[in-house]
């Protein structure tokens, strides 16, 4: 594992599978009498959130606490950031407090990368601007593997033995919606292609990134053409808050062409699952009856988020950072 997790593209296939396998084991901790492991005792994880977030921040907090780390939550509201403190000065403050890992969400793409220059601990990108959100991609991959890979693939746990060590080879994933503003889409494309899945992006021309042909995936403007050949439908949120121009005429038109409703869901293959990174705009990109159907993994994604983040924190902080001399002497 690398010391930082900034981009899903930094993960090799081996790294990614190690994270998924580790998460598979850690999932059982949630069902135990004592939902806590002593592994990160004495380490401090700082959640540094410059953007609003409920599920990602609480998910990281739960993950760190289940591993017995101390958690400091730092949100831009009500902090010195509101008084104009720069990212660098905040970073130096955290460094002085002895943060072993900083989980950062920031509206500016690239902020986590900058942070690695100022901090001696590990940096985990929890979403930066329209760039990346690697742990979301990991939990999405974990959810796909849980539901679609191995015999006995179902929603429940149980026979997960045959999933270990496996990627997502041959699984067809269609990511639909506001790809342009979506860090989730970008991280997913990178990670899923590393794991062997075939990714197709579907978006209106105005919401398709410019150099999408350089990405390791296909692109299409026609949702209906992709429905029958998708094992996974991942619907993205229409991010009104990042839209500075008119990208589509009306919400109603967007819904008609790119929204997943019951009629479209019926055309999916029988085993296909529907995912959404949340928060959802019900009735825009996803109809309520689709979101609440048993094909939807939206709640499972949240639960898996905690275990995947535990795996990331454990693998980044649980061992010695580099090979110790003792190691090479063996």
């Amino acid at each position, binding site marked *: 594992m690398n010391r930082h997790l900034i981009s899903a593209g930094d993960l090799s296939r081996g790294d990614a599978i*190690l994270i998924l*396998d*580790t998460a598979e*084991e850690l999932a059982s901790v949630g069902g135990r009498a*004592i939902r806590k492991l002593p*592994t990160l005792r004495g380490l401090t994880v700082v959640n540094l959130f410059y953007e609003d977030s409920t599920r990602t921040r609480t998910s990281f907090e739960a993950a760190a606490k289940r591993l017995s780390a101390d958690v400091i939550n730092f949100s831009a509201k009500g902090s010195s950031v509101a008084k104009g403190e720069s990212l660098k000065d905040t970073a130096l403050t955290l460094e002085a407090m002895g943060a072993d890992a900083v989980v950062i969400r920031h509206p500016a793409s690239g902020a986590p990368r900058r942070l690695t220059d100022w901090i001696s601990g590990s940096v985990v990108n929890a979403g930066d601007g329209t760039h990346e959100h690697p742990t979301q991609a990991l939990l999405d991959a974990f959810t796909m593997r849980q539901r679609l890979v191995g015999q006995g693939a179902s929603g429940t746990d149980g026979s997960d033995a045959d999933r270990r060590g496996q990627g997502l080879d041959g699984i067809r994933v269609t990511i639909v919606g506001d790809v342009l503003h979506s860090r989730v889409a970008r991280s997913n494309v990178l990670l899923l292609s590393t794991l062997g899945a075939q990714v197709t992006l579907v978006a209106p021309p105005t919401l398709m990134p410019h150099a999408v042909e350089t990405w390791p995936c296909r692109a299409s403007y026609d949702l209906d053409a992709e429905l029958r050949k998708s094992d996974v439908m991942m619907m993205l949120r229409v991010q009104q808050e990042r839209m500075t121009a008119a990208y589509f005429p009306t919400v109603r038109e967007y819904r008609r062409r790119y929204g997943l409703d019951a009629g479209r869901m019926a055309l999916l293959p029988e085993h296909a699952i529907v995912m959404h990174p949340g928060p959802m705009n019900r009735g825009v990109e996803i109809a309520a009856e689709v979101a609440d159907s048993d094909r939807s993994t939206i709640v499972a994604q949240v639960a898996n988020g905690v275990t995947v983040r535990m795996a990331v924190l454990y693998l980044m*902080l649980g061992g010695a950072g580099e090979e*110790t001399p*003792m*190691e090479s002497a063996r």
Partner: protein
Amino acid sequence: MCAMRREPVDELGPSGQGHSGQGPGGVSDSGPGQPEQQGWKAVLTPEEIRRALTRIAHEILERTHGGEGIVLLGIPTRGVYLARRLAARIGEFEGSPAPVGSLDVTMHRDDLRLRPARALQRTQVPPDGVDGKTVVLVDDVLFSGRTIRAALDALNDLGRPRAVQLAVLVDRGHRELPIRADYVGKNLPTAHREKVRVQLAEIDGEDSVLLGEGDK
């Protein structure tokens, strides 16, 4: 600090599970099925291993009054296979097989920070759990005792057994903690720097216990 570990038997990554070649343990010397190499001396033959396990199974039954309420928990990797063999033998002797599972201790080890993070192994507890049971921990080699200490901690998080016992195939001495085994396949006097390697047919292709020089 090297002395804390029984090298290399318990340091293997998840062998044969398709993980990247260099597991976090960085073990390069014991590919599955590799025959006896130079520098390694066999100290237990397959026959002797079989007899030792049969004896341990009988001892467990004696000490627990016919295996009432026992749960065998193997410590990965090789302890799990030993636990399964013991459970099968207990089943042969008594008619009903003993519940068997596995207990990964990685997250509870005291040497985690000394080395890169390791892949986790499987923890599987029989459906009835461990509360009120007599848990028999099973491992291949007992050395410093630190793995067993970690196992006791890990067990603590799973429930409250009535009693905990320890069965090992080889006790090689050099304890660093006040821990002893209840059932021992073979007491093997060793020098501190020597290495003990247990190979089991399930993953190594053959049964053997090998003793080797420490400085390879």
